[in-house]
């Protein structure tokens, strides 16, 4: 304390070694978005400045995440404990390849959404705080990916949740209020379950640091004992709710089509994937024995999620609701990776998460453009978009193929890995479910393409005929702000499909970093582990 003459050996409690400037990159993503969000909040009334400021900060976020990824690849896992306290006492940010990869992809998607939002969010939406909420949502998302403390993870979940509420009710429409009630209540119950499990974990081990927990759980004689099994089951339920896995998935199709389409795009890309990430982090890093114990349950949930998602998508005629079910089907694939649990399977799940973040955001953006062109989200009223823009039709086909897992796009490789891992683990049904779900998703996406793009006009148009679409329906397309983000995301989809080596290496490194977490533990506790 200041002004006191008592001398104390601070090195007992605090890290006195100097911190390299580069390690500050660990907090940069959260810090940039908090500062940007606060600044946008203060300038809420200035609706012209908001997009520039928001997009600027999101661009900065991408740069910071990229720099952090390069640093992690160079130096291995980086830890920074807030306030210089020695772990496990301070709140630690521990950045490994898994966290930073997802954080980087998430920030790219958020940047694209920020640009897309400049065209689709009107000045009322901006005054209600689209950009501040988007930035604060990214604070939560990046914080959740980068933190090394389980209670801190809870706090980031709440940060992203409260921002998502703000985004969800941006226009205050009746339908939005309806969706927000369901989304809000169920997600709040989910985070409360998360908190219960965390409290019990603290009661058992007296620590909340993930690395410390991993060590203490590994030191147990019977790591699948009763109390810990309860904790694991609670975590599974909580994160399954966040990730929208069957049977706790119904909030997603009830709410994701209600907000502004760019908000839907961000949600579909990021929120459920944060749940999956937390599931991977906790079940693979901290509770590996409980994961093995629950593998059959997780596999069953994964199969059910894969099939509900795909069949649900087939039964919809509203494009955004259809895409909501496609999101759920993707969650099933990632859960399949967690169920198998080998390094290969986890790397497949990570790659799939990256693919799903990009492609789902792009698809929702494409749905928004379809609405602008065709004046509807309904497959019965859409039609003839091919003659409006052949290039857009091609882009949508690429995205539809990618999300179904067809080559040569980004969904193909993670699906190959996951099916391979499932079969070699002896879980034939799981592998089969992934393939069947992929097939059904192909049908659903193909149907969207045939009805909205290939058919000459709205329902009832005879084959081969074309009906001139009333040109003035929908909002005028505002050029680059709409096409640039979709173009960037589609380019990434194609790139990860044709050149998967880079992402394969990242996801393999991320997976092996938590399946054998020696590097993670050493980064937190120094060389003594």
């Amino acid at each position, binding site marked *: 304390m200041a002004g006191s003459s008592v001398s104390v050996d601070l090195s007992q409690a605090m890290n006195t070694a100097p911190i390299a400037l580069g390690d500050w990159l660990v907090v940069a993503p959260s810090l940039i978005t908090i500062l940007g969000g606060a600044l946008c909040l203060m300038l809420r009334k200035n609706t012209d400045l908001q997009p520039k400021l928001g997009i600027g900060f999101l661009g900065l976020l991408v740069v910071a995440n990229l720099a952090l990824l390069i640093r992690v690849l160079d130096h291995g896992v980086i830890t920074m404990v807030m306030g210089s306290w020695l772990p496990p006492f301070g709140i630690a940010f521990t950045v490994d390849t898994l966290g930073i990869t997802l954080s980087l992809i998430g920030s790219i998607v958020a940047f694209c959404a920020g640009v897309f939002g400049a065209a689709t969010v009107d000045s009322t939406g901006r005054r209600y705080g689209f950009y501040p909420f988007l930035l604060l949502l990214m604070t939560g998302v990046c914080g959740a990916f980068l933190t090394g403390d389980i209670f801190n993870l809870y706090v980031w979940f709440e940060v992203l949740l409260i921002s998502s509420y703000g985004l969800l009710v941006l226009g205050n429409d009746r339908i939005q209020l*309806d969706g*927000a009630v*369901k989304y809000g209540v169920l997600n*709040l119950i989910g985070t409360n379950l998360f908190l219960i499990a965390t409290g019990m974990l603290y*009661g058992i081990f007296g620590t909340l640091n993930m690395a410390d927990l991993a060590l203490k759980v590994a030191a147990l004689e019977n790591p699948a004992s009763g109390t810990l099994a309860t904790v694991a089951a609670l975590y599974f339920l909580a994160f399954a709710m966040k990730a929208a896995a069957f049977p706790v998935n119904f909030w997603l199709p009830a709410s994701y089509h209600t907000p502004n389409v760019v908000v839907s795009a961000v949600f579909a890309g990021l929120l459920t994937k944060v749940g999956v990430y937390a599931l991977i982090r906790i079940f693979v890093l901290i509770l590996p024995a409980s994961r093995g114990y629950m593998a059959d349950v997780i596999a069953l949930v994964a199969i059910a999620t894969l099939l509900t998602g795909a069949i649900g998508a087939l039964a*919809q005629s509203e494009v955004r609701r259809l895409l909501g079910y496609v999101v759920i089907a993707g969650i099933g694939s990632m859960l399949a990776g967690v169920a198998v649990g080998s390094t290969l399977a986890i790397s497949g799940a990570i790659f799939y998460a990256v693919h799903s973040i990009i492609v789902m955001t792009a698809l929702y953006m494409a749905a928004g453009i379809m609405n602008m062109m065709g004046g509807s989200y309904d497959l019965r009223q859409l039609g003839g978009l091919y003659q409006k823009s052949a290039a857009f039709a091609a882009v949508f086909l690429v995205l539809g193929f990618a999300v179904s897992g067809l080559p040569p796009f980004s969904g193909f490789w993670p699906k190959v890995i996951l099916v391979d891992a499932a079969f070699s683990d002896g879980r034939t049904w799981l592998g089969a479910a992934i393939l069947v779900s992929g097939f059904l998703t192909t049908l659903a996406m193909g149907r969207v393409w045939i009805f909205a793009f290939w058919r000459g006009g709205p329902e009832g148009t005879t084959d081969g005929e074309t009906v001139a679409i009333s040109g003035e329906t929908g909002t005028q397309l505002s050029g680059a702000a709409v096409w640039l983000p979709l173009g960037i995301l589609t380019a990434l989809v194609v790139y990860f499909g044709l050149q998967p080596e880079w992402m394969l290496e990242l996801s393999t490194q991320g997976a092996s970093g938590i399946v054998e977490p020696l590097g993670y533990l050493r980064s937190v506790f120094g060389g003594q582990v």
Partner: protein
Amino acid sequence: MESGVVILIGMFFTVAVYLMLSKQLVRILLGIAILGNAVNLLIFTNGRLTREVPPLIPDHLYAPETATANPLPQALVLTAIVISFSFFAFLLVLAFRAYQELGTDEVDEMRIAEPEHDQTPPQGY
């Protein structure tokens, strides 16, 4: 003392779950509020209960003289209270707005986002 508190927590959870199973939005929200309190008590009890020794360090010392109550769960609970309080406030406003706009607080009747008689998707061209 822990066992007494544990029974109390159990009662809290019971009441919370009962209320959350209701169809009225207001009751669900009350259930969530009670659930939040149950969770806070649970975390607090998980930090082991110690009576009458606040974790405050006197001015002239650097470490507490005697064993004190565990400060960490208090910090955790404070964080959780802040968060659940703000969420509850938000959801209350949201529920009120929903009641005004949708004219009902029964969740079964909130079918605007997912209409009850949805048309089947197009079967063919």
